[in-house]
């Protein structure tokens, strides 16, 4: 991930403010009043533009340094970048697959995959994934009555 300088952040903030002003332009006021749904977003937008402008102005003194993009150390290390992507991928996998597969298989596969991606020992990862899945399933589904996704597959466990 790129580490942003004060200048980059200033530009982003100012643009965010402009986008907010444009997006809130169509919000009408309360009947018979000058204020309504658009007042607060517009105020936030103006604050963001002013803050962005201040940050851009304040970074002019160190301009060459501020323009350089700095990559975080982990981005340049394939193993760590992979670990970050695997973490996000597990959540996406759960969102997409849990309704079809049910909680137990999705959680077990997700946990095992992530533990292995983080270089855990295979046997430890299998055991930890199985125990965590069952503890979370029984804790939430049975004790707290949360309707976790269920399918016929492995339904004898629940």
């Amino acid at each position: 991930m790129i580490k942003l300088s004060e200048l980059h952040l200033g530009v982003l903030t100012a643009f965010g403010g402009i986008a907010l002003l444009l997006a809130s332009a169509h919000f009408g006021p309360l009947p018979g009043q000058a204020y309504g749904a658009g007042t607060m977003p517009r105020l936030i937008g103006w604050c963001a533009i002013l803050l962005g402008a201040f940050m851009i102005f304040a970074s002019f003194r160190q301009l060459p340094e501020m323009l350089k993009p700095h990559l975080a150390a982990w981005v340049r290390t394939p193993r760590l970048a992979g670990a970050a992507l695997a973490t996000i991928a597990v959540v996406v996998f759960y969102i997409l697959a849990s309704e079809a597969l049910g909680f137990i298989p999705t959680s077990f596969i997700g946990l095992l995959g992530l533990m292995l991606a983080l270089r855990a020992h295979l046997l430890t990862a299998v055991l930890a994934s199985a125990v965590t899945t069952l503890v979370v399933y029984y804790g939430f589904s049975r004790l707290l009555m949360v309707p976790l996704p269920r399918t016929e597959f492995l339904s004898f466990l629940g």
Partner: protein
Amino acid sequence: MLIFEQAAALVFQPYVLGVILASAAFGMLVGAIPGLTATMATALLVPMTFFMDPVPAIAAIVTATAMAIFAGDIPAALLRMPGTPANAAYVDDAYKMTQSGRGDEALGAALVFSAIGGLFGAIVLMTVSPTLAEIALKFSSEEYFWLVLLGLSCAVFVNPGSPTRGLISLLIGLFVATIGMENPSGEPRFSFGNIELMAGIQFIPAMIGLFAVSEVLRTVTATSPRQKIQRSDGGGIFKTQWKNLKQYPVQTVRGSITGTALGILPGAGADIAAWISYAISKRFSKHKAKFGTGHVEGLVEAGASNNSAVSGAWIPALVFGIPGDSITAIVIGVLYIKGINPGPTIFINDPQTVYAIFMVFILANLIMLPLGWLAIRGARPILSIPPSILMPMILIFCIVGSFAIANSMAGIVMMLVFGIIGFFMEENDIPIAPAILGMVLGPMLEQNFITSMIKGDGNILHFFERPIAGGLGFFTILIWLFPLAMLLLRRRKKASFAT
């Protein structure tokens, strides 16, 4: 007296006491794991509290946070890895004490003075809150507007980091709070026709994402490996604390007062309280040079301070409905879900619940001593769970917790989005706390601002017409002008030095 009896009946039940014990153990566990904060313990507890009555739900959060902040001292002393940001101020002293074979004295001091600070804060909470609530009943939209703005300003300017980045965080939080239909005209804003977004951003999944998922991402991308656990000397944990108490009574009281005061200040919280108390301790110490080299004095003062801030933060939360820190921000959400409206009327409508909360504070800080002793003894196995196993476990807990809020996948999507935003923010040194306060206080700020503007017919001076509103407004503007004044002063000094 009847209210006290009713409150005691609410607290002293086997179920509530069981919840207190279990959440104490949970808080110890979370606090003792480096990187997991007391706020995260609270966020992870929220899905559980959905299934509890108000008193056990609040008892669980109060106990877990108090324990987590103390337990954060365990990895701080053993590994030089503060368990929570509130333990970071004195980590060098605690770690160097361990290195020199005084690990048990360091952890014992952290435990005993945390309990003393927590009890002090709880007593102030019990005595000051009802009086403040009576004053707060006279507040109108102008006072509330300034009070909210004061809290948001403190979150930005009292933080040790850059104020500009704090402001970015605050604006992100305020923007997130505008999403949905909850606004003066009930018009859907920034929802893009999505029904889930029309109801606004779900606070708890966002919170779990910002704190827990971002922390998981930070841990898995950490470039430096964990250090090996140091050997403890095995001496008595409580043995030297009486001597410390006799030697540092002023530091203990000063730390407790500072912590409570900073806890009351909306937006400050335990992290800042610990840093400021450590700095005060060093400033007034006769042994300034010993600070940072394994000296217990700073640990005594800052240890008392961070736990008293936890109690202090509940004062604005209960009295005004304005959170003192990110933990009470979550608590306010839980109270609303439970049908209890924090604010001055809670002392009239629900006094037994308020007094039950006070009792829980006392219980939590007393129970901390035996449980803390056990936690110090049993810390090693917890600390030795490798991150490659622990982080996926936390992630699945986050997923299920976010799902449980509304039994919908939208909660998990929000958690992931906010997790990535939180990770990006922390990578760029943008603090998360102002964003959280912005999300919580945004609707209150908007409502009071619009109401006051309509009342004053658009006249800004109307915000200063009532005496308390005027005073609060003046104080808030002073906080905004302070960094500017400091900047000008620094420039003038530089210029005079150059000439």
